[in-house]
């Protein structure tokens, strides 16, 4: 496990020129744009780098070689999730620090708890994205996984459009005011929302991990 985490860390470190570039872009963006943007931008870069480690592992039959090391296929999946969770958290934390530095330097008035709440709601979104991307990357080759993710995005958009249409139809047919219900959600305390969001996140990541372990166990190298 330690070897796998070291490998992933080293792969990221090798791309230090890219990291430095992203760092400067992030700093500039944090000053030039809405400060909330950086908190979404930097973890997105982290997510891409984390996924790139799977592509590097797969390249040139590398996965077969990794499986000759003292790890089982399931260990590989677990190590990748640990790396992903740590990586996303660190990039998010870095972005939050950068955001607050920009507030101080630019002397922008801000409501600390409110900004924190907004920032805390962003992180689970990345955990949910990675919960889909990792098993897809494990199951399909790097090229195929891009197609699969593209198709999945399309399906999600279609479901959203169809859902919106269905809710409109149900609302008018049965006289239910969904907009008023949605407005009612705003009365729920942000802490409750965050708690629910993180609980859902833990469940989804756990299911994703179990799927990934099974994919790796069934795989031939």
């Amino acid at each position, binding site marked *: 496990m*330690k*070897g*796998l*985490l*070291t*490998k992933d860390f*080293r*792969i990221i*470190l*090798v*791309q230090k020129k890219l990291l430095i570039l992203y760092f400067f872009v992030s700093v500039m963006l944090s000053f030039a744009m809405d400060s909330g943007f950086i908190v979404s931008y930097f973890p997105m870069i982290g997510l891409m780098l984390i996924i790139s480690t799977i592509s*590097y*592992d797969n*390249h*040139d*039959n*590398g996965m*077969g*070689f990794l*499986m*000759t*090391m*003292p*790890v*089982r296929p399931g*260990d590989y999946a677990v190590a990748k999730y640990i790396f992903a969770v740590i990586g996303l958290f660190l990039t998010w934390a870095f972005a939050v620090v950068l955001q607050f530095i920009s507030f101080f330097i630019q002397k922008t008035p801000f409501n600390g708890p409110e900004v924190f709440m907004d920032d805390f709601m962003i992180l689970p979104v990345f955990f949910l994205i990675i919960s889909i991307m990792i098993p897809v990357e494990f199951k399909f080759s790097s090229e195929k996984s891009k197609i699969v993710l593209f198709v999945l995005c399309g399906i999600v958009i279609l479901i959203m459009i169809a859902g919106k249409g269905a809710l409109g139809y149900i609302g008018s047919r049965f006289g239910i005011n969904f907009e008023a219900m949605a407005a009612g959600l705003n009365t729920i305390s942000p802490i409750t929302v965050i708690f629910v969001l993180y609980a859902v996140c833990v469940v989804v990541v756990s299911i994703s991990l179990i799927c990934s372990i099974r994919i790796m166990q069934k795989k*031939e*190298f």
Partner: protein
Amino acid sequence: MIRLNNLRKDYKDFKLDVSMEVPDGRVTGLIGKNGAGKTTTIKAILGLIKTDGGEIEVFGKNPKDFTGEDKKQFGVALSDAGFPMILTIRDVISILKGFYEDFDEKDFMEKCKAQSLPFDKAIKDFSSGMKAKLRVITAMSHKASVLILDEPTAGLDVLARNDVLQMIRDYLGEDPDRSVIISSHISSDLEGLCDDIYMIDNGKIILHEDTDVLLGNYGLVKVGEEEYGSLDKKYILASQKDSYSYTCLTSEKQFYVENYPKAVVENAHIDDIIVLMLGGGNK
């Protein structure tokens, strides 16, 4: 001890069905054409593929039940596979330290230096020879009791091949209980290294013999067309018709030396055996 008993693996266009035994402390060669089944056999031993029948036992266990601890007994070099190519040897050192408590950093670095491998250059920028040497040095880095080397010398020039083979000999010299399974399609690599050789073709073992016996008893019998008709073929394994004569592979060359004084009997090298056994020679 590694034991394969009618181990089967069925692909759409290829079927493997092999039986072999590798006792502890032996150097066993697996030789055959490209696509003969060498890599599939090695992958089965390592548990990298699922098998479709037969038995496989590696140190008393089925490879599918290997734990991480079990895998530490192996040092593996797969052909054209290794750590991500963007990494450097310094990165590889950190990774191997994370995988193996027995990783000998000093020895690893000395071996890399002896082979003039650069520590800070990305592996993708290495020559084929350098990559092959790194794969073998990596396999030897944690004092594994079994080395499994799949085509470690493929695509290398004669000097690089010699270096790789010498590293393997040195590794064996450090501890006589160490075993090696090495696959190659270059026979001369195996002649000077292996205790016994399995010849594989089209997914089946077609010959298994001690290297000493192969080089000592096997021979080529060259006879004219007339003599060929009257030749006792009980020790002839394969024969091939040339322009005006026949070349026959025998496992008892002395028999033909003593009984056929007109026949030309020569020592057979493994390449000759491969050509006659795998090249379509018929008895």
